[in-house]
Each structure stands twice: as C-alpha cells, then as structure tokens.
C-alpha cells in the first residue's frame, strides 16, 4: 500500500525547478531511502511533504486521500513528522522540555494544568535514554553539541508518535556510536510498522536499512524500486559518478 503519493509534483524557487514533475509513491511500513546528488531536490521533497514549502504544482495524497494543500499546521494531524538537515530545536528550552511540549495533550484545560504529567515524563525519559541524552535532560537544547542536537531532534520526532517519519540526513556528521543509535531507532520504527523516508548519502547505511530506494536527479525521478536492484542500475551509478 502507498501511504504517500506525489503526482507531477513541482516546486520552483524563482528560476530553479527544485522539484520538476515528480511522481512517486512511498510504501507504508517500509524504509524508503531518497538519494540523489547535491541539489537534486531531496530536502525540497521533504519540505513540500511537511508543509514547510508550498508546492507550486501537482498533487499529494496521504493514505489515498488527495490533499489540496498541505501546511505545517496540518502535518501532525496527518500523522507526519520530520527532522531537518539543519537541526531545528526549541533552543531556549531544556532537553526534557523539548520532548514534553510535544508529548503533552493539546486540549484547553490540559494547557493550563499539565495533565498526565507523570506518564509523559516517563515517555520522555524512555526516549532520552534511547538517544543517550538522559544525562543532559536539564541542559538548554541550544547548548548541545552538533550530534546531540541531531539526536534530540530525532527523539522529538519519535515523541510525536507519528506514522510517517521524514528524516533529512539524520546520520550526517555523527560519530560512529551515534550512528549506531540512529540505526537502532530506524530498525525499531520499521519493526513497529511505521513508514520511514530516509534521505541519506552513505550507501552502506542504505543497503543495511532501506527496503526501497527513490533516486532523484534535477528534481526529477531517476529510478525507484527495491534497494539492491535500484542501486545497481546504470543510470543511478552514472548520476553518482558524474557528480
């Protein structure tokens, strides 16, 4: 089943066609790697799917439902969450609060009196331990190291409890032990039947983690299919070698 579909999707930044008539489908419950040379439109695809950048043409469907437009305010309701290539945290808040603000129920009375505080605190602890940030829980997010910031952003995405996770280069710049943690997170999401879209350059990680691969080039779809077969195709190899 396709949980995310785009049809003739395009996104122009004055003069640049970042996405150029892109039609693709993302399988539910699988890890799909999105690869392509620098500037091929990978981040733009995630930005459009998460309402950060409005599309300039084409259609998007989530779980078979065509959406007229998708804004940042609706993505959570569609069960979509994401991380950013350049990490975006709530920098003035401490590590724990970055998760609690996502975990706590968003109703009018819950807003005044934080309800179920204990349940949420426990879930936040669980997530922070998973990404090895529990010891840092009281530190300001803005003061964390680069890798820790990436891990916290991933934990925050997990806190949303979404069905679809769009990760924009979650491994970039991480130390090996942090790479292991993120790998673990992806494997677990897959086991839970969640859908993962993974933008990644490292082929070893892609072979290890991805069920499917989507290859972009110049905002267009170059290839799409099962990981091993797609990575072996000549046009894919050329796109990478020609970089």
């Amino acid at each position, binding site marked *: 089943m396709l949980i995310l579909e785009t049809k003739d999707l395009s996104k122009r930044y004055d003069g640049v066609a970042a996405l150029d008539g892109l039609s693709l489908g993302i399988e539910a419950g699988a890890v799909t790697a999105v690869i392509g040379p620098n500037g091929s439109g990978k981040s733009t695809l995630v930005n459009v799917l998460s309402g*950060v950048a409005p599309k300039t043409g084409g259609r998007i469907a989530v779980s078979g439902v065509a959406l007229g437009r998708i804004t940042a*305010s609706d993505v*959570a309701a569609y069960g979509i969450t994401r991380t950013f290539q350049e990490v975006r945290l*709530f920098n003035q808040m401490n590590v724990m*609060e970055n998760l609690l*603000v996502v975990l*706590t129920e*968003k109703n009018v009375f819950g807003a005044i009196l934080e309800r179920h505080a204990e349940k949420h605190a426990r879930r936040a602890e669980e997530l922070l331990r998973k990404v090895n940030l529990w010891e840092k829980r009281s530190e300001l997010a803005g003061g964390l190291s680069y890798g820790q910031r990436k891990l916290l952003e991933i934990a925050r995405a997990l806190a949303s409890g979404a069905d679809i996770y769009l990760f924009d280069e979650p491994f970039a710049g991480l130390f090996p032990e942090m790479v292991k943690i993120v790998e673990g997170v992806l494997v677990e999401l897959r086991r839970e039947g969640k859908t993962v879209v993974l933008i990644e350059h490292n082929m070893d990680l892609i072979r290890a983690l991805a069920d499917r691969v989507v290859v972009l080039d110049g905002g267009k779809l170059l290839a799409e299919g099962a990981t091993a077969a797609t990575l072996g195709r000549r046009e894919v190899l050329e796109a990478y070698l020609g970089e």
Partner: protein
Amino acid sequence: MSILPQLIANSLIAAGTYALIALGFNLIYAATKFFNLAHGAMATAGGYAAFFLLQSFVGINVVLAAALGVLFAGLLGWALDRAVYRELRKRKASNTVLLVASLGVFTVIQAVIAMIFTSQFQTLSGGAADSVYQIGGAAVTETQVIMIAAAVAIAAGLGLLLKKTLLGKEVRAVSDDEEVAKIVGINTERVIGWVFFIGSAIAGLGGILVGFDTGLQPTMGMSLLLRGVIASIVGGVGTVYGAAAGALLLGFVENFGIWKISGEWKDAIAFSLLIVFLVFRPQGIFKR
C-alpha cells in the same frame, strides 16, 4: 528630611506601572515577533471599562469592577488578534505591516473611547481620597502599593506560567520556532490567542491602576505604550525578566534623573536611556 526615600518610592511606583505594560508587550512580542503598538490602547480600554462599570452600577464592588475591566481588556486583545493580526498572518504579512496595522488599531480604539467618554479627564477613585501610608520616610498611597505588589506578583506569575505549564512551554516553542511548533502539532494560533488575552489583560490592569492613581484620559495609552516599549527594549525584548528589569531601570533613571531638574525632562530622560541602549546594547539587559 531626606528626599531619597520618596525618590526610591516614586521610582518603584513608576517601575510597577511600566512593568504592567512591558510584561504583556514582551510576551506578545515573544510569540509574534512584532511590536504590537495597540497594546497601549488595551490599558486605556481596561481603565475605561472599569470606569464605565463604576459609573453605571452605583455601589458595585470596586474589586469586581476592576476584575471585569481586566477581563474586558484581555478579551479585546484576543478579539483584536483574531480579527486583525491573525488574518494578516494568514496572508503572510510582514512584521512591518503588522506594526502599521497595530498603530491603526491603537488610533481607532483611542478615538472610540474619546467618542464614548469624551476627552475629559476622569478618575476611577471618584474623588475619594486614597489612604496614604508612610513607609520608611516616603508617602505612598494604597493604589501605589497595589501597583507595585501587582507588578511583582504578575512578573513572578508569568515566569512560573512560562516555566511550569504546558501553555508556557508552547509559548516558548512558538517563540523559538513557530514553524517547527506547528509541525510538532502545537496549535500555534490558539497559543497566540492566549498570549494576547493574557498580555492585554495585564495591560488592562495597568490602565485601571493608573486610573485610580492619577486618572484616565483617552490619550493615556500612548505615553504608557512608549514607557512599556522602552522598558522592553532596555530590558531585552521578548523576555519576562527583561520587561521587569527594564521597567525597574527606567523607573529609577527617570525619577533620579529629574532629582535636580524639572519634571518636564522625564520624557527626554526616558528616550535618552532608550538611545543609549540602542547604540551600546541593542539586545537589552537580558539577551534572548
């Protein structure tokens, strides 16, 4: 007898007034990133709402009238956000457009108040003399004591709200990165609505206390707004502590500045402080 205790008292009273304006102004700025100039009119509206109640319902409890005035100012601020600013945000209006719109709103509210209540000077105390306390060599009225206490309590309460409650965390999230706040499922428009309600209600209380202390005039909002804006910038725009610290500094500088010269220089002193900060420390005392 030394004039010093009275100067200190006057500084604290002024600081209390400015803080009641600056706290809400800064809160709204933190969430929306624009200078809401209509904020001054919320103080005026709160003051006149209480005035209206005291005039219309003779014998009404003063505290009740003040509370309803505060509520009115809060709702007015909320409605203003809903009707004007939110629509502009939807149209992706720039912060400059919002600022100009807020100046327009300020003018309209001020004009409506003048039409209903005339431009005449009014007092909320109805001429009844305020009890005067002698504290450490300074004469302070009951209203002024309430003013200082209210400012301290509200600054502390707002700090707690931001730190401890979910709404507070949501406000800080919106303040840090509104787009990401939306993506993680925070209803940012609702949060901003609350911010306008709370901030405007605090300004309304400021206007009511000024009405009891010195009196009401439709144009009073502008000088309150200017003091609030200066206190915000001096203290550090977008922070609770900044608003409080800026108000305190402004109150002291103004009152000690006119110690040896005429009181007409107050405005000049306030703006000099602003310019000094804009030039030498534009981020204010507390940097966000």
